[in-house]
């Protein structure tokens, strides 16, 4: 029992560090990639090739003054970034990063770790995918609270818009997953990924193409990324719901947004691209395939940001409710009919 706890604590520690490293790397890579797409250079002064830029950003944010606006609701103002980061990090707990790996016998590890198989997933829940859905529903509150607590009409409007956008597209996101759950027959991430074993045409990308399209669009809207980032656009609404935040609280909100984006990319890599399964049958499955697919998704998000203009808010809501939800329901119906017919 205590050994299990120790191994889980180790997994949590490693995963948190990994997430924070990917987050800081993403802030840098996004700026550089966007710059290359826009035919300019990004940050390349701090350190070799600008690689120390995230550290410089962190130091700058750390030393800024923490301001709580007058008339703002102090406790809720402080609680909102905390809730954002809590729900963002909690949702990573069910995402698997690989299959079962065994510790090799190095001779320097404690006795119970030698040769022990470890699942690269913190919590293999029975209801894995639903848990993710529940936590993304809870993450809406952080934005609502942040927007309302700052006593500022721009942040309130930005917060309400952003949360309305998030829970509208959440519906389409969840519906796109249900077709996959029907085919795989289980809510567990591990079962869904193992269903895609074999060559790459077993991936759900090819079995559920409509669901993948819906997932891409809805996932981008969920993560508040361009072209759906009107609620936090700098040119409209004065940066939206996080206008009044400065220093570390702002850093926490940004961290929550990036971790949310990483989670959606990880879920997409697991559900549609086969997770850690290799695309060719003769190469072994390994977490490196998963990292590759995750990197592909993250690159795609940055690519979208550099390419597409923003949606207007009413276009956004129309698209979510009138196009994506019917498409997702259509996909679900066709999948259900096919599953019953093939039984």
């Amino acid at each position, binding site marked *: 029992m205590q050994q299990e706890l120790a191994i889980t604590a180790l997994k949590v520690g490693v995963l948190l560090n990994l997430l924070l490293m990917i987050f800081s790397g993403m802030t840098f890579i996004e700026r550089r990639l966007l710059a290359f797409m826009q035919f300019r250079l990004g940050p390349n002064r701090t350190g070799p090739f600008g690689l120390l830029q995230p550290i410089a950003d962190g130091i700058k944010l750390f030393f800024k003054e923490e301001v709580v606006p007058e008339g703002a609701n102090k406790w*809720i103002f402080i609680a909102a970034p905390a809730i954002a980061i809590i729900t963002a990090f909690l949702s990573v707990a069910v995402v698997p990063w690989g299959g079962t790996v065994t510790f090799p016998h190095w001779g320097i590890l404690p006795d119970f770790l030698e040769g022990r198989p470890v699942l690269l997933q913190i919590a293999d829940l*029975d*209801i894995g995918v*639903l*848990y993710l*859905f*529940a936590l993304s*529903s*809870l993450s*809406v*509150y952080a934005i*609502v*609270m942040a927007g*309302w607590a700052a006593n500022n009409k721009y942040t*309130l409007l930005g917060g*309400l818009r952003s*949360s*309305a956008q998030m*829970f509208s597209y959440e519906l389409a996101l969840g519906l796109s997953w249900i077709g996959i759950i029907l085919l795989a027959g289980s*809510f567990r991430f591990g079962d869904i990924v193992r269903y895609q074993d074999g060559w790459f045409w077993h991936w759900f990308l090819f079995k559920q193409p409509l669901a993948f399209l819906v997932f891409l669009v809805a996932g981008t809207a969920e993560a508040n990324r361009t072209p759906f980032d009107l609620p936090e656009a700098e040119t409209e609404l004065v940066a939206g719901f996080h206008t009044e935040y400065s220093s570390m609280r702002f850093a926490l909100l940004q961290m929550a947004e990036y971790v949310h984006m990483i989670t959606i990319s990880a879920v997409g890599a697991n559900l549609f691209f086969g997770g850690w399964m290799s695309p060719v049958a003769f190469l072994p499955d390994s977490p490196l395939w998963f990292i590759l697919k995750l990197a592909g998704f993250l690159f795609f998000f940055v690519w979208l940001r550099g390419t597409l203009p923003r949606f207007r808010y009413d276009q956004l809501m129309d698209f979510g409710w009138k196009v994506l939800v019917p498409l997702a329901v259509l996909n679900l119906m066709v999948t259900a009919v096919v599953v019953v017919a093939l039984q």
Partner: protein
Amino acid sequence: MNIDAVTFYVAAALALVSAIVVVAQRNPIYSAFALIVTLCSLSAIYGILGASFVAILQVVVYAGAIMVLFLFVLMLLNVRPEERFAGESLRFKLLGVGLAGLLAAQVAYVLWRFAPSGVAAVFDASSRPVARILFSPQYLYVFEATSILILAALVGSVALARKDA
């Protein structure tokens, strides 16, 4: 003292405290946040009692959607904290609490006399068995009627909240 019992009592205490905050707090937005805490702690209790599917549904539907609706309406209507009014007296508040206490005492008496004992040993309440019962002919009519109810609520709420323009 196993972890299940500890989590149950902590969640129960949290649910009680936040329920009292819902009722006693003057600002409705704080009441709404306290209700969210209550709903999430109740979801934890459902999980401990073995109903994992219903627990996660509670978070998704209740805490994740219904309370967002409440918060939206509260923020859009700019609801102010309740003010003291003439005619308010401590006597009526005590009378209200007393009546509810009477209700609680009656239920407690029944529970103490006819309390169920024992816990079902094998209990699989994941999604598949619950869905099997939900979609069985026994609940088919209720299921379809609920779908029509949701449709009626959808159309009705849009019709009611529209501005007569």
